Each structure stands twice: as C-alpha cells, then as structure tokens.
C-alpha cells in the first residue's frame, strides 16, 4: 500500500494526486492512498519527518516494524518473511 502525504506541488495529497501517482507507477494492483490529513502519523510510528517511511503490517494489522529510507522496504520484507516463518 502506498500513501502519499504530499502531492507533486508539495501541498497535502488529494485524490487527484494518488490517481496520477498510480498512473505513473503503472496502475498497480495495490492501493495508492492520499493522506493529506496526517491520519497515518496518528496510527503508526511514522512521523513524516523523514522520507520515505514504511511499516510492515501483519494479517491482523499488527505493526510489525517500521523503517526509513528508499531501500528499507527490504527490511520490511525481511520482517514479514520472519513473521510468516519463511
């Protein structure tokens, strides 16, 4: 799941921003959300003080781990593999 907190102009992300972003990355089969009102900051350890940030979520929506940086998705995937016993 992607969540945009700002659009291309630096303003809070809108529905148009996530539609455009989804188009840019090839219309993925996962959601691209707009979170212009900082809801994710209020429900995860992510802060929006760094860019990008990501969290691994379990099937029960448990926050397994959170990371910062462009290549940190590998760390999130490692967490998921470990939790799944793979």
């Amino acid at each position: 799941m992607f969540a945009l907190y700002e659009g291309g102009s630096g303003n809070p992300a809108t529905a148009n921003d996530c539609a455009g972003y989804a188009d840019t990355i090839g219309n993925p089969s996962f959601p691209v959300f707009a979170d212009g009102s900082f809801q994710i900051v209020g429900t995860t350890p992510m802060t929006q003080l760094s860019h990008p940030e990501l969290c691994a979520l379990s099937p029960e929506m448990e926050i397994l781990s959170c990371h910062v940086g462009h290549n940190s998705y590998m760390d999130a995937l490692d967490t998921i593999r470990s939790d799944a016993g793979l």
Partner: protein
Amino acid sequence: MFPLMFVSLLSTIGCAPSTLSADNCSDTEDQDGDGLNDCEEFELGTDYQESDSDGDGLTDAEEVECVSNPLDEDEQCYECGWAHNDPGDLVSEGLDIGDTMGSIELVDQCGEMVDTWDFYGEYHVLYMTAAW
C-alpha cells in the same frame, strides 16, 4: 377440503417453501435469478427471493464476487476492486510497534474512501511518501 386442495395445488406447481433450511434448499434453483443458488443464499443469510437483499443496487452475487457484504447496504464493491475483508472484533491498541494499527479511511486512486482494515488478512507494507 379447500385448504388441502390449495396445498396440493401449490405442491403441484412447484412453489418453494416459505423458509429455506439446509434440508429443503435447492443447489440447482436460483429463484431470484441473482446468480446464487438457493442453498448459497441460505448459507449467506440472504433473501432467496430478492436479488438485492440489502437494497444497495448491487445483486447479492455481485457483492459476493467483489467480497462485499450483501446484507449491509452501506457496504458496496470498491471501484478499484479491493475486498471488504471483515476484521471481526478487531480493536486498535495504539500506534507503536506490536500494536494493532487503527482503522482509518483514506481516498484511493479511484477516488473512493477506503477503510484500511479492509486489507485485513494479508501481510502489507505501508509505504508513505510524497509524489514529488
């Protein structure tokens, strides 16, 4: 005499029982023509004589196909095709590692408000970034 004849007539022309059960439902009949047979309707608890049990404009079969609750008029198929996975009695505990992430509604690329708990049941990476 008349009631007996009436019941006999109903039986002859094949009227369905007024209530379905696991014993008397038919897995070949689809009385409301919605694409779900009567036994499937019984199992789901939907109305086997009404193609749109919750009256939300989508047939029961359409809602089953898109993983939406056919008995909840407020729940309809997401335009982008996301499933409405039911998190049951899930409760958010906080926002730290090890906590259950809270349910929030965000707009998706199809312009619809989506509940993040509808993605219950699978592992996910929530990747927050900016479009610039």
